Structure formats: C-alpha cells, structure tokens
C-alpha cells in the first residue's frame, strides 16, 4: 500500500480523499495556490505544498509544480479528484514517465474517452447503446426514409458541415420527413456550401442517467447502478439521486451489466461513469467520465461502499473488494450541490463565512471544506458543500433533505440552499417526474 498520497485538488473533494487516506493509514499531501493557504484541505492534510499563484492554470493545473511537489514530499501516488487534471491524459502520461502512480485509469483510456468520436465508436463496439444515426451522409430521400424507419421517429436531419442549429430539421413523423430532408439540404447548401446531411434519432424529453462502473484493471468490473442527474442548469448538475425514479430493478440490472461488461472488456481500472440520455425505456450513450464524479456519495450511500478507498486499493495493486453479487442497492439517496451563488441569477458569491453549521443526525452526510471564518476565494468554482441524505425510500429521503436543509447555516455569502427548499415544494420533484429540460423551464417561469 502507498505510504503517502498527494491530492492534486482543493475544496470538498480534496477533503474527501484526505479522509479516505486517514482511514487507510496513508499520509496525505495537500497542494494549494497562494489563495488557498488557509483552506481546509491544507489544514487537514499531513503536509502541504504551495504550488502557485491563485490562478488555477498556474497552480492546480501546473503539471510541473504538482510533479515536483510529489518529488519533494516523497508522495508515491496522486489522486486527482474531479475537474482540474483528473481527465488530462498528458498529465497521466507525465506521471507514468515519472513513476508516480495515478489513482485513476490509464492515460490510454482517458485519451480514448476524451475524444467523442473514438468514445462512441468504442462503446458501439462494446455493445453500449448509442444515439442511432445514419453513419455518415444520407444521399437521397429513399435512403433517409429507410434510416428513419429503422430507428423510429422523431428523427432530426442535420447538415454534415453544420453547427449552431443551422441546417437542422426535425421530422416528428414519417410524413414530415420529405420537407425536413429537403429543407435541411437547401439550408445546408446555403449556409455551408455543402448539402450533405445525416440523420439521428431525436430525443424529446430525456433524463440524464449515468451508470457508476468500477474496473480492477485486470479484466474484472462491476456496476453500482445508476444516478439520475437530470436536474441541470446550463449543463451543470444541481440535484442528483440514486436510484433514479424512472429505472426499475430489471432495467438497472440490464444496463448495469452492459456497462460493467464493456468496462471489463476494456480492461479499465478504477472508477468511471457512463452517461446516458434515457427516454422511453432506451439508453443513449453520451460520454464516459474517467474519474470520480461530484455526485459519487449517493452511490456510496445506496450501495454501502467507499469508492475512494476502492480507487486507492486498485491503484495500489491490491485489487477491488467489490463483487457484483454483493452490490445490492437499498434505500434512496439524494445530493444537493450547495454553491456560493446568489439567486436568482446564480451569480458567484465569494466572501467570508460568518457562520457555518452543518446539519446532523440520522441519514445526513455533509461534505464541505467550509469553516467559520474561512474566506471563499473568487478564483475557483462555486461548489462549497454537498449535502447528501439517505433514507429507506424516496419520500423519507426527501423529507430528510428538507429537514437537513433547514439545519444548514452558511452566513456571510449567498448560497443555492433556497433553490432546494423551493424545489422540494414542486409536485414534479416529489414524484420524480422531470427531464433534463425541467429545471431550466422551471427557473424561467419562477424568476
């Protein structure tokens, strides 16, 4: 096992990893910018190294400084958290060259999944369902009709050379296809000087469902069910839950197995998430995140596992302890991302924390790097805490979330807490009846 791990991150996720290190008897090294000298992750780690000025580019993204920090402290491995360098194949390559263990997948897997086209091709080959499309240009209406019928309506006709919505036409049913096809072509011709178009399945009210997978790097892999992260604002998740209100046990087992098998086949190592759009009982691959997700605690609650511990075990060559047959979900977990943002515009609200009081009691987990007197610097993202609740079922989890939100006190800056109070009053949230468009629409009509 590693004797010392460096955490190349900050905020709550750095704390998350330091806690796992402490529980495993591993020394931890925090790195920090000059703006984060007083940050909680620096206080909690066994050692700390200042790696640059406030700008993330010059500190948390500085590969030379982070590798040097390993060298001067003797850290044998790096946990990247999420964001920053966590999916940077060049960084992982550099670590491999310096014989520092990266706690995560190989640079090859990161590179493969970092390229959208390669990722999709890989997933198709591994049997993971993707958005059906015409595999390149469609020459004429007859071909278009054939493609559209094979995937089912609605479909969208898109200019091969297109972008920005131009040359995109929707065909809701078969009788719209003629018009859609010809107008997409002529618009494409006018806009891009190229009338080639292709056809894709069109999703109207999808949910964002992601499957947590974990591989041991030696051909064994498990899945830990799904998370529903459909509630998003500008493609940022704000509220995540497991299990999804829309997925039943059979569907979970089926898509889970598909994902775990794909990961095993790849020889993938460590934690990963395969993200899908989900509509009418079908999954459509979006992308794979080759790292720990912000919302991993909901999976930890429902499957009673410690994902960071497993990451470290696998990276250290000790293998993963999880076995598919023992991974039985129970209860329901919800995470709220508490951001230092001022509603209704979600304007960042950095500043000094005049008071901080975390909620407590049964079924409540708070992951936060806040403390009373801390100043949230303006240089980084606005996530200041994750409130995770667990209950025997979804109504219990919702009631507990409301209770815990009421106990949370963050004075001195504005936070997104009131958003969650308001969401809990919505019948659609109470019943789980939402899609990836729900939150944006709700925000529009409520501000």
């Amino acid at each position: 096992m590693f004797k010392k791990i460096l955490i190349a991150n900050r905020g709550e996720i750095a704390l998350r990893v330091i806690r796992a290190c402490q529980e495993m008897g591993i020394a931890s090294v925090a790195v920090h910018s000059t703006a984060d000298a007083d940050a909680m992750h620096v206080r909690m780690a066994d050692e700390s190294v200042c790696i640059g000025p406030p700008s993330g580019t010059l500190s948390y993204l500085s590969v030379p400084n982070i590798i040097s920090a390993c060298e001067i402290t003797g850290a044998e491995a790096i946990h990247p958290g999420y964001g920053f360098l966590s999916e940077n194949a060049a960084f992982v390559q550099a670590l491999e060259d310096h014989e520092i263990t990266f706690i995560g997948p190989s640079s090859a897997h990161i590179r493969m999944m970092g390229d959208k086209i390669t990722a999709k091709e890989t997933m198709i080959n591994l049997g993971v369902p993707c958005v059906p499309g015409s595999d390149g240009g469609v020459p004429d209406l007859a071909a278009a009709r054939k493609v559209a019928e094979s995937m089912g309506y609605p479909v969208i006709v898109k200019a091969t050379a297109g972008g920005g919505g131009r040359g995109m036409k929707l065909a809701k049913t078969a009788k719209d296809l003629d018009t859609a096809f010809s107008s997409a072509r002529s618009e494409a011709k006018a806009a891009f000087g190229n009338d080639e178009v292709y056809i894709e399945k069109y999703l109207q009210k999808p949910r964002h469902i992601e499957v947590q997978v974990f591989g041991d790097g030696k051909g064994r892999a498990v899945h830990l069910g799904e998370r529903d992260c459909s509630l998003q604002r500008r493609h940022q998740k704000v509220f995540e839950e497991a299990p999804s209100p829309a997925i039943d046990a059979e569907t979970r087992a089926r898509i889970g197995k598909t994902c775990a098998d794909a990961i095993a086949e790849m020889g993938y190592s460590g934690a990963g998430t395969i993200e899908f759009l989900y509509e009418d009982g079908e999954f459509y691959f979006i992308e794979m995140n080759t790292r720990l997700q912000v919302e991993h605690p909901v999976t930890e609650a429902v499957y009673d596992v410690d994902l960071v511990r497993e990451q470290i075990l696998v990276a250290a060559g000790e293998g993963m302890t999880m076995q598919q047959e023992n991974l039985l979900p129970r209860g329901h977990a919800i995470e709220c991302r508490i951001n230092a943002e001022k509603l209704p515009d979600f304007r960042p609200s950095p500043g000094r924390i005049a008071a901080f009081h975390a909620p407590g009691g049964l079924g409540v987990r708070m992951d936060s790097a806040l403390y009373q007197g801390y100043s949230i610097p303006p240089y980084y993202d606005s996530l200041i805490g994750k409130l995770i609740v667990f209950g025997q079922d979804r109504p219990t989890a919702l009631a507990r979330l409301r209770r815990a939100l009421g106990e949370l006190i963050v004075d001195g800056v504005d936070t997104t807490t009131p958003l969650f109070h308001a969401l809990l009053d919505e019948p659609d949230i109470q019943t789980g009846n939402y899609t990836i468009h729900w939150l944006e629409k709700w925000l529009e009509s409520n501000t």
Partner: protein
Amino acid sequence: MQLAAKIRTGDRMSKNNHQADVEFIAALAALLREHDLTEVEVRREYGEDDALDVRVARGVMPTAPVMAAPAPLPPAAASAAPHQPAKAEAAASDDPAQHPGAITSPMVGTAYLQAEPGSPAFVQVGDTVTEGQTVLIIEAMKTMNQIPAPRAGKVKRILVEDGSPVEFGAPLLILE
C-alpha cells in the same frame, strides 16, 4: 462568535497609557456583549496628533437560513428555522418581565382574569391591591390556581389577556 477590535491611537499618547488603552478596549468589548451589538466604531480625537480609532465587532451566531424558506408542504412541514415567531414574542416580552414591579407566572397554564365567565375581573388597571389578594387565576392540569399579589400595590398594567396561555416566568401584571 467572532469579535474583532481595531484600535489606532495618535502620536501623543504616552507609553504608560497602555493600561488605559486596554481598559478602554475591555469596556467596549463588555458593552458589545451586554447590549448584544455586532459592531461599535469610535473615533476620538484628544488633540493634535493624538487620536484613537477603535472598531470592535462581534460576529453572528448561527441564525435562520438567510433566505426565507418557501412555504412548507407535507410530508415535511417542520423545516427547522432556529428563530421561531414564538421565540420572537418571548423576546419582545422580555421588557415587562424585567420590570421590577412585574409579577411573573409560577407555572405553565392558561390565565384567567376573572373567576368565571361573566364575573367581574379580579383586578383592573388602577386598582389598589393588598398582599395576598387574588389577582388572576392560572388553570393548569384542569386545576384553577389562584395567583395572589406578592405585596400591596397599584396595578399599573395587565400583561395577559383572558384565556391566554402563559409560560413559566411570563410576566402577568405590573404592580407599583
């Protein structure tokens, strides 16, 4: 709770005024605490090149979430709001309770101003009462408890309404 004091003193202040400085700061800090203030800022000029700037600030204790929580819904009607209206009322009633002439409730119950509906009130504002005279009744556990005047005096204010609930220590009336 945080408390910050910042002091700037002018040129002329001699070094043996340290003691005076410390006492002054201590007095400000005590004042802050006593009156539950969050901040006091004083600028005092004693003369040319002899000035004193002090800022003493005390931070906030955990308070209700800053934004108003939306109207609660079942099944979670009871969202925690550390400061309740009930508390606020209690706070507002502190003043009469502190009054040296206040008679406070020795028990929890329901206060009645007369022996039974329709009867005259035991006392009215302006009445002179003798020690031991019943001034009101508190019903507790289905028992009527007569509350006697602890001393003779004149009823200045009656602080409870007929039939209203009272806590332990709640001010009932003021006798002068």
